[in-house]
């Protein structure tokens, strides 16, 4: 999986931001809804759990809200969107020779240590996104552009939480 050509530099952040903003705008104009990510994870879990324990899913509103009448929870807008995210990310990475099997970390932490933190970070992400009814995509980006009050409060707290714990995590990144 090692690319033969050196990885190209990332785009100017403002240019990438305009691109991202236009995709978000297109989603508003075409669908009347914004982007998302964490909802697709919940739909996937509900689909998997429905296959093994349908009564358990039906009895818990945190799962059952992702059930669909007459079709799989996977037949969902966000699930298809997130599948596209994988394809688009892979496409961009391939074109710029940036697809590499590697672990991203600072120089002062072991690979296994980094992976433990990645897992803990993922669990926190999942819990945080549930409480907030969305993540950086569905709340911060989408709600931010729509001037959604809760989304702006959420966004400020995301930066506050990350900066508050940055010092504790410095050995992982710097």
């Amino acid at each position, binding site marked *: 999986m090692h690319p033969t050509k050196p990885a190209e530099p990332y785009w100017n952040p403002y240019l990438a931001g305009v691109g991202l903003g236009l995709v978000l705008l297109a989603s508003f104009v075409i669908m009347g809804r914004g982007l998302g990510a964490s909802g697709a994870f919940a739909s996937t879990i509900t689909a998997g759990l429905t296959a093994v324990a349908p009564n358990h899913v039906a009895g818990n509103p945190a799962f059952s809200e992702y059930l669909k009448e007459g079709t799989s929870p996977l037949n969902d807008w*966000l699930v298809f969107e997130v599948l596209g995210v994988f394809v688009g990310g892979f496409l961009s990475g391939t074109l710029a020779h940036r697809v590499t099997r590697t672990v991203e970390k600072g120089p002062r932490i072991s690979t296994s240590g980094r992976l433990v*933190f990645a897992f803990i970070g993922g*669990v926190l992400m999942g819990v945080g996104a549930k409480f907030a009814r969305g993540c950086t995509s569905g709340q911060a980006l989408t709600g931010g552009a729509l*001037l959604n009050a809760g989304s702006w409060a959420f966004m400020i*707290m995301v930066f506050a939480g990350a900066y508050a714990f*940055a010092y504790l995590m410095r050995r992982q990144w710097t």
Partner: protein
Amino acid sequence: MMAPFFKFGLFGDNLGMVVAFAVGIGFGFFLERAGFGNARKLAAQFYFTDLRVFKVMFTAIVTAMLGVYYLSVFGFMDLSLVYLTPTFLAPQMVGGLILGMGFVVGGYCPGTACVGVATGRIDALVLFIGIFVGIFGFSELFPLVSGFYNATPMGQLTLPQVTRLPYGFIVFAVVLMALGGFAGAEWVEKRMAARKVEA
């Protein structure tokens, strides 16, 4: 008035799924272009060495915000038909805090983790699995937290409604704030780079 197209019945659910996939491709493409498939680039935001998380996010927010604003001012789009997540202030703020903590601990957010996985990052894959565990755990324990989850409901609420200021004024203020933030970000990055050379 003809947008949002889907809400005006210009196409149905099946084509909507195709749109979802296409929108996702664009989303993933630009996230990767921005450097967001790489946890080091994302985490650098919180050490002030590379502020592209802020720059990309706010450029995207401003672009889409101006887009929907002008399209609705010119009567092309009915903004009231765009889905707005209802505000539950307390759980959203606590959720944001937990998610922000997870961001600097894990290095990706849910969307960028997908891009990291797609471009081979093992740490992104581990975080990706962690998200499933977190959502599953939350959902299993939902009866215990449902009270707080549904606390402080405020309905669909926008900043213009909260501040009682005109929509266009808030749009203008966000643009100004973003431009100020970008100038500040460039200044901070230069200072951090200079400090690195000295050290």
